[in-house]
Structures are given as structure tokens and as C-alpha cells.
């Protein structure tokens, strides 16, 4: 059992909903990321989602676009991100790490070479925005060989038939994108999210995480009532942008928001 499965199995027994913060690796600089990962765990994060910078992040709103641009100013590459994960693993061998990004950097490294290097670094799974299950067969083989999970997205426009295809191809958990649009957008309709999450759960035993539009303790609490994991991205990345000049303040601001959201989730679920 890998770290992601182990966590969800344990949390199921406890009735705990996982908090999954997203930050872009190398934002605002390459040295910030590993200490920030530890700080997030300490503040109550359960699974870390680490963004791999890409020059053309088509599904991101302005907040994460800028984060990727900041990281790319330091030429942070996929190999550098794997280096950060290995460094993180020197002190933390239990918190799952999920890489989020776009296909091209993985494609250029080669699926097999990537999977081998990622597993060796201590990565547990990947979420690649621009590869649907229909195109993923060769990638799935390479990831499975190295026991890496792949998390696919389900969106408000996904048909029931596709939910089944996606659930069959996914491992670790299924990620429900709670609104139409890019990251950091809009307003959350909790009733619709509940309806869709239940529909996904009718097709799979995998845990369901929900992301997009969750920015504070209140929205996280509402989503936590129906989901197994709550993903928070742009709200944290905004803090990073705001405090980019000071590593201490940045860590404190991100940890502070995570602690608030943690409390919101726990109040709603325990």
C-alpha cells in the first residue's frame, strides 16, 4: 500500500477529511519550497500537491500562472522538483506528495525515465491536467510499474459514462473540479458539488477529493461534508505572492491559512 492509499484508509477509520494544499514548486524561489512543505504538514496538511512549473499552463487562472512564471524565472525544471521531493523525504517519509502539472515536461523526460525518477525521489502520484484517460495508456503502464498513482479529474461537464472511464483509470483518488473555469475562479455551489461527488462515489470505491473555488475555512468546511479530501490552491499561492519578499512571513502566512482551513474542516466533520 502506498502512502496515499495508507492515508485515506487511516482517515476513513478516523472520519478525518484530508486537507491537500497546492503550491508551485520553486515559487517564489527554489529554496523556499522544501521548508514550506514541512511547515504545511506541521500546520495540518495531509497530502501535499506540488505544482511543476510549465511555460503554458492552460488550465490555470492568473494567480497560479504568475506562480509558475516566478518559478520559471529561476528555471525550475521537473528534475529540480524531483530533487525538492527527495530533500523533503529526508525528514518526512509519511506525508504523501502528489505532483501536479502538464504533460510536456514528462513527455520530454520520457514516461519510463520520469516514473523511475519520481518513485526514487519519493513521489506518490501525479495529476497531469492535459492528458485524459483516452491518451494515457502508455503513461499508465510506466506509472504502475513504479507504483505511482495517477489522479484524473472529473468536471461539471463530465458525462456519467466518462466518470466510469475516469474512475477505472484513476488510482489514489478521483479529483472533482467543482466549477467550470480555471483555477482560482468563481463561486462554489455546494449542493451541486454534493450531488456530483455522490454520483462519482456510486461508480468507484476510490476516495473523492474536491478542488477549485475553496479559499477559506467556511468553503472548506462545506466541501468537507461531502468529500474525502479538500484541495486548496490559489488562496495559498496568493499568500506566497503577497509575502514573496520574506521567507519567514511567507511560511507563517501559508501555515496560518492552512491551520484555519484545518480547523474549519475538523469542526464540520468531527
Amino acid at each position: 500500500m502506498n502512502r496515499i492509499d495508507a492515508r485515506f484508509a487511516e482517515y476513513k477509520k478516523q472520519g478525518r477529511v484530508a486537507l491537500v494544499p497546492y503550491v508551485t514548486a520553486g515559487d517564489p524561489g527554489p529554496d523556499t519550497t522544501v521548508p514550506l512543505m514541512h511547515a504545511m504538514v506541521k500546520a495540518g496538511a495531509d497530502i501535499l500537491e506540488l505544482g511543476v512549473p510549465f511555460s503554458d499552463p492552460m488550465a490555470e487562472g492568473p494567480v497560479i500562472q504568475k506562480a509558475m512564471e516566478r518559478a520559471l524565472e529561476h528555471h525550475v525544471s521537473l528534475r529540480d522538483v524531483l530533487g525538492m521531493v527527495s530533500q523533503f523525504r529526508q525528514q518526512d517519509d509519511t506525508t504523501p506528495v502528489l505532483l501536479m502539472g502538464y504533460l510536456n515536461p514528462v513527455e520530454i523526460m520520457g514516461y519510463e525515465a520520469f516514473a523511475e525518477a519520481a518513485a526514487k525521489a519519493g513521489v506518490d502520484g501525479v495529476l497531469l491536467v492535459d492528458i485524459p484517460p483516452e491518451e494515457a495508456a502508455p503513461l499508465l503502464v510506466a506509472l504502475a510499474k513504479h507504483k505511482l498513482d495517477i489522479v484524473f479529474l472529473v468536471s461539471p461537464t463530465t458525462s456519467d459514462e466518462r466518470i466510469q472511464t475516469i474512475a477505472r483509470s484513476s488510482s489514489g483518488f478521483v479529483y472533482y473540479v467543482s466549477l467550470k473555469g480555471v483555477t482560482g475562479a468563481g463561486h462554489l455551489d455546494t449542493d451541486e458539488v454534493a450531488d456530483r461527488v455522490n454520483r462519482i462515489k456510486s461508480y468507484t470505491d476510490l476516495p473523492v477529493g474536491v478542488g477549485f473555488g475553496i479559499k477559506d475555512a467556511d468553503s472548506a468546511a462545506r466541501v468537507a461534508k461531502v468529500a474525502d479530501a479538500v484541495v486548496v490552491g490559489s488562496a495559498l499561492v496568493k499568500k506566497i505572492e503577497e509575502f514573496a519578499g520574506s521567507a519567514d512571513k511567507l511560511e507563517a502566512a501559508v501555515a496560518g491559512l492552512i491551520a484555519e482551513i484545518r480547523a474549519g474542516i475538523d469542526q464540520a466533520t468531527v
Partner: protein
Amino acid sequence: MSQAKSENQDKYNLPDDRGHFGEYGGIFVAETLMGPIQELREAYEKCMQDEAFLAELDNQLRQYVGRPSPLYYAEHWSKKLGGAKVYLKREDLNHTGAHKVNNTVGQALLARHMGKTRIIAETGAGQHGVASATVAAQLGLECVVYMGEEDIQRQAINVFRMKLLGAKVVPVTSGSKTLKDALNEAMRDWVTNIDNTFYIIGTVAGPHPYPAMVRDFQAIIGREAKEQILEQEGRLPDALVACVGGGSNAIGLFYPFIDDKDVAMYGVEGAGEGIETGRHAAPLCAGKSGVLHGNRTYLVEDADGQIIPTHCISAGLDYPGVGPEHAWLKDSGRANYVSVTDEEALQAFHDLTRIEGIIPALESSHALAYVSKMAPTMDKDKIIVVNLSGRGDKDIHTVANLEGISI
């Protein structure tokens, strides 16, 4: 029966039903777009079987675009080059001044057919943006055009044209602030507004069905050229030449000739300041395979898989990717891909202007520059058809600036 079957098997019939041209093409998009893409695909396939739709499209092409465009024998230039006879397919004479409108007319009709009230488009030089805004005005559709901030400054006249036509031009400030970023931004708009919005992609790239759909709308160029050359010369040409940015004018010319194996095909990319300088826009000549903007194709990218900003005197060729069908035609050897520099393209721009009285677009000037190298090496009874994809009025400021003239 068996003979008919084997003939069918030999016939070119890509992409396959998942949008693949060999290993290229496909659908590489975020999940939210998978539903809308399927809806588009079904609507497109239905419309292409619908006689009323096809009649309306045909009428638009004749009465609004002004087709068929002439196939002009450039006698003076041919004699000067001293080799093959060169014919120009005059897409520059279309309404709005380029081949782009063949596609926007088709996609806008499809948008209306699907009940979409809002169209969005990306643009580099502004030609596709103008062609989209034009058709939107005619059909009464709302139109939003995404354009890189850098390009907005370089192409002020086209920006004003789009505004006159009622379109909203949105400056894109992310990434390199050019065409590729405009495409990213248009995709972000689409994913946010899928209920009422139709995304008109301007070239043969993007997720399936775009590469096939845009090709089918542009194939009118090759179908006409074939008929015209048979009428004027009584035989097929020896070679076709077209510039390749995303590659829509080139595919439009090439596609109806793919099964005519004796017709050679040359796609001409922008070598910018020279391939060896790294400052170019030539993914087929100098790039490698990768995934961007919804499809697998050749890209200008670095060793980490980041897309590198391209350089080309012509904004319409200034794009780091290329249509996946070109990637396939390159690998299969059916078409040849070459490149010419900014300087060579400029020379051809001046030559055609002075010798034939036709001011070509800087994009098309790349194709002409290659013809000027190739034609002299061929016998006088050989025939080249080159796609004059657009007129050069939009480029006169660029050319004047380079020559230190302010107008």
C-alpha cells in the same frame, strides 16, 4: 471487389477516429473541455453531411469571400527566375485579404448551427482575428479576440479593424505575450464560458477535431487549384509550395493532392535570424515532438519541455507549434519541410511586388523565397503552384521600419 478494397486502403484517410495522424494529434485538454469537444465533433460531422449547411457554406464562400480565387501564372517572375513555371494561388484576393476567412466562415456557421451566441478567437498578426470579427459582424455574433500585448503594439491597424467590426480585443499579458499565450487565454475563456461560447481556432492545431475541421474548411484552396491547373495546363503541377506557421494554408493546398504521389510538397517555415542562432520559428525543421495546445506535434522547446519564444519577421509564422498533420506528413516523407530566413523572405517580398505588381504578406513571402531558390533548378516545362496566402498591406509598416522609413 478486392481491387476496390485495396485502392481504398491506399487512399489517405487520416486522422483516425481518435484524431491521430500517426503518433501526432489527439486530444490533450483539461477534463472540462472533453464534453464540449465531443459536442463540437458531433455537430461538425453532422453539418458536413447536411446539404443545407453545405449549400450555405458554398454560398458564403462565393458571395462573401469571393471564391474561387484565381490561379495566376506569374509569367514575369517565372522568366526572371529562369526555370519552372510558377503559378500563384491568389488567396490574397479573398475578402479580408488572406486565406483565414475560408475557415472562419465555416466555423462561424457551425457556431450558429450549434446555437452558440458568442465566438472567441486567438490572433497573432491579427489576420485570423479580423477574419473572425468580420464573420461575427455579418452573422450577428458577439466576438472576443485574444491577442498578445506585444502583437497588439506591432499590429495597430488590425487591432483597429477588429474594433471597427465590433469585436472586443483583449490584451494578453501572460507568458511571452504573443500568439501562444493568446491561445492559452482563449482556452481559459472557453473552459469558463462553454455554455454559450464557440472557440474558432485559426489554424490546423488544437485538440481533435480542430486540425481536421480547419483543414477541411481550407481544402477549398487545393481543390480549386487542382481544377484550375488541369484547365490551364492540362496536367497536375510538379510541386506545391506554401508557408507553414500553424500550417492551415499549407494543408489547404496540400490535402487534395496527398494521393497524387507525383506532386511534391514543400512547407516553408520561418528560420527567423537563422536556425543556427536559435532565434527562429521552425518546429518541423529544428524542433522535437511534444504536447501543447491540445495536440502532440513538433514544438520549439527546451530540454526541460518548456516552450521557447519564437522569432520570425512575420507574426503569422511566429508560433512554436505546428499542425499535427504536418508532423505526420514530415515523418512519413510525403511532404518536405524547409525554412527561409527573415532576410530571404524580405527579398522575395520586394521581388514579387516589383516584378508582378503584387504585394505579398510576409508569411507568404517565405513560400515565395523558397520558390525563388527552387524554380531556377527546375526545367522550364516544370510547374510549381505556390500559395499566396495573404496580401502584404498589413506588413508595410514592418517593412518600412526595417528600412528606417517612418510612414
